[in-house]
């Protein structure tokens, strides 16, 4: 029991919906000796008024939050330090401390009682926007909040502090569902609509409540009802790339309607074999990709690039596929290299493979580079048209949309017009008008439609 160890006293969680408490009375004063479990202070919340037992034994070295102040759950109120302080066992008595740091740590250090401060701790604690306060204090004590691997992962991906999440698992543990619901609801459970609290609390010079995180640029002040999460590196990258692309290319979009009857029939025929023998699905996307690769061979500029004042064309086609990650909160474009060498099955396997590995985060850096043309498929959600943004420095991007049954005018065997029900898919080509003119784009789409409508099984 090292005499240097200290124990933090934090504002306890007094019920699931309580997020703050007011200190009504300190029962011990700075410099006084206190035993573990001895009443230390009295607090008042909107649910209960209660005594808080001391989380450890030792001298009450410092009180940070004075009587009358209202602070958030988890805020450090005082520190007990000095002889006899038994961090490990005594912290267990804190009803439910859970400061931002505690949670950040418990993911990494399970027996974190009174660990000396480390730079890691500081870095982990700061990015969480809602995280309270001080980065210089010793890491607080919390051996209780177990954060499961998947919760830790989701928390770090979304920049969420698990200690802000209401746990419904055993012993109040935060489950995967809890944290997903928390994120989905925009992190609302963190601070359930408190009208006045935060602003008045931090009168003390101490950790008290929230100091707005101060990143490089000064953000607009937070408004009631807003919540914050940091942008992931991926989000920043997407933001930069999208803006940059619109600033670079002259975006124009042309669309064409394709009768997918033939593809649909072939697809139905191949489905079982593909699934049983190869474990892949012959999706509409695969057919479009295969036909696009074939068509691109005849349109080198659409598969090209403007580099300086030169036009680059290629003897190969590297097809990028936009893959959605994290339930729509991220996007990556893995590339199928030399797509012109793949037949339909090869394309199905290649696309399934990269899409899967994209979701599993198992792509090699090399596999998201070198694309010469991109296909994006927002049609899965039923959209029938869109204007995607070109992936720079490519010249065009193909959008595929929902296959929808529509009344369609076709010729019967006598050459008479009749209305038939046909599965129709819209395709869009968004191209860089600096390089590709409307007529060229139109011819490309016409040829692509032709290939899909007259799909020649033996050739693909």
């Amino acid at each position, binding site marked *: 029991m090292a005499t240097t160890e200290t124990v933090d006293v934090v504002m306890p969680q007094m019920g699931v919906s309580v997020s703050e408490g007011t200190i009504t009375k300190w029962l011990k004063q700075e410099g006084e000796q206190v035993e573990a479990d001895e009443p230390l202070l009295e607090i008042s919340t909107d649910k209960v008024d209660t005594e808080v037992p001391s989380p450890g034994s030792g001298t009450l070295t410092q009180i940070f939050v004075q009587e009358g102040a209202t602070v958030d759950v988890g805020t450090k109120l005082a520190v007990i330090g000095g002889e006899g302080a038994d961090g490990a066992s005594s912290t267990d008595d804190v009803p439910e401390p859970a400061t931002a740091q505690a949670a950040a740590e418990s993911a990494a250090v399970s027996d974190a009682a009174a660990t000396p401060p480390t730079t890691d701790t500081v870095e982990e604690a700061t990015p969480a926007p809602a995280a309270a306060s001080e980065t210089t204090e010793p890491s607080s004590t919390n051996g209780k909040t177990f954060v*499961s*691997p*998947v*919760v*830790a992962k989701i928390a770090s991906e979304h920049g969420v502090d698990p200690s802000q999440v209401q746990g419904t*698992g*055993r012993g109040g543990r935060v*489950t995967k569902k809890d944290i997903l619901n928390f994120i989905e609801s925009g992190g609302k459970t963190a601070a359930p609509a408190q009208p006045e609290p935060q602003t008045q609390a931090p009168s003390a010079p101490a950790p008290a409540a929230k100091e707005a995180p101060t990143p490089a640029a000064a953000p607009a002040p937070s408004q009631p009802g807003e919540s914050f999460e940091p942008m992931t590196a991926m989000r920043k990258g997407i933001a930069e790339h999208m803006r940059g692309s619109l600033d670079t290319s002259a975006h124009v979009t042309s669309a064409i309607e394709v009768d997918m009857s033939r593809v649909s029939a072939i697809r139905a025929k191949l489905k079982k074999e593909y699934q049983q*023998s190869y474990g892949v699905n012959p999706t509409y996307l695969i057919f479009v990709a295969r036909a696009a690769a074939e068509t691109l061979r005849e349109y080198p500029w659409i598969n090209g690039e403007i580099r300086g004042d030169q036009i680059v064309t290629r003897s190969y086609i590297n097809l990028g596929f936009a893959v959605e990650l994290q339930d729509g909160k991220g996007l990556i474009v893995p590339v199928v290299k030399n797509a012109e060498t793949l037949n339909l099955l090869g394309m199905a396997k290649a696309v399934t493979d990269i899409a899967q590995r994209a979701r*599993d985060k198992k792509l090699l850096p090399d596999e998201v580079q070198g694309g010469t043309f991109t296909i994006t498929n927002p049609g899965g959600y039923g959209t029938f048209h869109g204007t995607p943004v070109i992936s720079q420095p490519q010249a065009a991007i193909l959008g595929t949309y929902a296959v929808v049954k529509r009344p369609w005018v076709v010729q019967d065997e006598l050459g008479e017009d009749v209305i038939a029900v046909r599965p129709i898919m819209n395709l869009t080509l968004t191209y860089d008008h600096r390089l590709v003119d409307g007529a060229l784009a139109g011819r490309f789409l016409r040829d692509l439609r032709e290939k899909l409508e007259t799909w020649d099984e033996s050739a693909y």
Partner: protein
Amino acid sequence: MAELTYLQAISDGLRTEMRRDKRVFVIGEDVGVYGGAFKVTLGFQEEFGHWRVMDAPLAETAIVGACTGAAMMGLRPVAEMQFADFISCAWDHLVTVAAKQRYRAGTPVPITVRLPSGGGFSGGPFHSQNPESSFAHIPGLKCVCPATPEDAKGLLISAIEDPNPVLYFEHKHLYRRIKGEVPEERYTVPLGKARTHREGSDISLITWGAMVYTAEEAAKQLDDDGVSVEIIDLRTVMPWDKTAVLESARKTSKVLVLHEDTRTGGFGAEIAATVAEEAFEDLDAPVRRIAAPDTPVPFSPPLEKAFIPQVEDVTKGLRELAEY
């Protein structure tokens, strides 16, 4: 499609292959005149003759040894162990010779050994075991454990077709209890591919053989608690469908492995370890196992019931995981 029992589906698969491929023959104790202890090969000797449906002496060593030799000479033998338990006699031939021949000499050994296995009818310690994990541990052997009539036929045909020794564990308790639609034509079910018996989002229950039905009952009960259980029927224990299991584990973040074999060193341990190794970051709870205790299979009905995992054992395990 016809509705067949699990047992009829096995017969149908075997008959289909025997009619199609003259290299396929059957050998085992009482498989000929008597039609097999469980009547899987009833009428086979009349149709295919005694050279293709051979009664063997009570000597499993001889049966598997003969099959191994015949397979090396180009035939496709299907051996029947009267009970899976008796295969221990043939261990040496299977493990030392058949499993390693391809590796040592490059010779394929396309034998299929049918193993009526499992308990639930007071068969006692010699007639109730599920020895799949012992053989799954041996490189060179494949282990198949069908749960449905459709899979029973398709997997048996795949087993016969496969160039390796395949152990086909057919669960006796399913023989006449389970019925299902079975295509009349020949088809195969690939070895090493799991089947999602039931989709769910909260817990993945990985199992095979008769336990698929125990799992299903338990999962239905969990529906009432608002817990959605996904059941993955492994179908083949070796090679096992790691991809499907990991995919499901990553989806639900909670995994329960269930098998009728005893717990220690059971194949569930391999699955649990793999999930922990490869999907650790996606787990929201410890991987759990439910299996039989480490004892011989008891004869007495109440004791056997206590031994084989029951629906209530599984619901309890599922609830604990759900609440974790």
